[in-house]
């Protein structure tokens, strides 16, 4: 098993490449999820204040 | 009935997400003058720029002599002239050079430049670079430009800005003579304008 990880001496290059790739893809996926959570929260908050006209908080563009 | 020149059907224009006005219908025929009313921020300038196809419209349609814009743009531009807030005058060029440039661009008679300059009272400052002229005098250069234009439709945005009493009288007289000569004028202004002798329709802008 050990020599598998050695990757024939190129361990550093192979694993850094794969690691970097999946790290960047994780960052993209995380960004997508955070954006969705932020927008859903903003829209629901806005809808609630919509129903109570006096406490209407201006919708930030 | 005289042929309608410019007509707009259920026009709506937005500034960003904010609706300025919607379902606006009007048309203007030869010999008519249309004054746009509305307080600041009511979208008068946006409507003017939309009529010149400079601003995209959300809904509705504008047509020139029945042909929809912006397709019939070429024909429309050759028969209209627009004078906006910024005077579109080159500071380094003299009044005469500015006018002769507009004349060659819009194909108007060169000879009438001298008359136009004297009519607006700039004949003795015609060769001074415009950056040395006062705001009122620069506004008079735009009025001279209107004089030499062959356009049927004048679209003026606040034509009275920075003009003195004589200037205001000159504008009133120019609009009246243009309308009676078979032209049409759309303009916005805050100060009241006494236009005797021609029917002035006014249009209130609300969203």
């Amino acid at each position, binding site marked *: 098993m050990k020599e598998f990880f050695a990757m024939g001496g190129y361990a550093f290059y192979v694993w850094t490449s794969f690691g970097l790739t999946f790290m960047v893809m994780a960052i993209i996926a995380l960004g997508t999820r955070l954006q969705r959570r932020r927008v859903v929260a903003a829209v629901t908050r806005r809808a609630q204040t919509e129903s109570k006209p006096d406490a209407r908080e201006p919708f930030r563009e | 009935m005289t042929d309608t020149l410019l007509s707009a059907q259920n026009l709506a224009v937005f500034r960003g997400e904010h609706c300025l006005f919607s379902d606006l219908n009007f048309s203007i025929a030869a010999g008519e003058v249309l004054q746009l009313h509305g307080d600041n921020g009511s979208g008068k300038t946006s409507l003017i720029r939309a009529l010149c196809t*400079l601003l995209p419209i959300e809904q509705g349609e504008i047509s020139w002599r029945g042909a929809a814009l912006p397709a019939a743009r070429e024909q429309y531009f*050759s028969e209209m002239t627009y004078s906006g807030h910024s005077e579109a005058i080159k500071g380094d*060029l003299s009044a005469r050079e500015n006018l002769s*440039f507009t004349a*060659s661009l819009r*194909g108007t008679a060169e000879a009438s430049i001298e008359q136009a300059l004297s009519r607006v009272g700039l004949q003795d400052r015609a060769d001074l670079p415009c950056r040395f002229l006062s705001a009122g005098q620069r506004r008079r250069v735009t009025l001279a430009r209107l004089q030499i234009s062959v356009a049927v439709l004048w679209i003026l945005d606040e034509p009275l800005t920075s003009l003195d009493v004589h200037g205001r009288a000159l504008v009133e007289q120019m609009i009246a003579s243009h309308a009676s000569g078979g032209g049409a004028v759309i303009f916005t202004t805050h100060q009241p304008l006494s236009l005797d002798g021609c029917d002035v329709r006014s249009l209130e802008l609300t969203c």
Partner: protein
Amino acid sequence: MLASFIALLKRDLTLAARRRGDWLNPLAFFVMVVTLFPLGVGPDGDLLREIAPGVIWVAALLATLLALDGLFRADYDDGSLEQLILSPQPWSVLVLAKVLAHWLITGLPLLCLSPLLAVVMQLPAKALPALLASLMLGTLTLSLIGAIGAALTVGLRRGGVLLALLVLPLFIPVLIFGSSSVIAASQGFAIEAQLSLLGALFMFALVLAPMAIAAALRISSE
């Protein structure tokens, strides 16, 4: 149509004649940038001769970029851009007049100055015709492509750096063929290939760029 083309061209040239700074600054910049290299790299002739084509070409490219920012900005600020858009003549023809005026003001003087800089950079004399020919075609193409960036960023207050960011990648093919033609000439090889490719790029830009510039200006003046 031709009358208004010439009228606009004449107007821009008279304006440039009255406002020296607009076209002298890029020229001074061009000369200064080239003279920096011997100071930075050392006066050794062989090395300078080696890098001369690249240095002159990059400096010409940067000087054109510097001059592009003001191409439409003056007309945009004083409102005459709108009047030009509202003229009955086809708008992309007038845009071509503006770009040609810009080239006559900045591109041509660059061309005339480049032999002087070729001497400063010890470029062999036999490479001079190639330098002039490639700069001629090259600066025309650079003005056309750069005008697209200038039109896109004319409405922005600090559009200068963004303009560079937008158009520099598009300048790369012109730079590659231009400087390699001068390198080939200085080594005595034939340069027909590079010059014909530069010519093709110019034709390509001449046909497509005005449409993009016209659309971009209409968008920016909304």
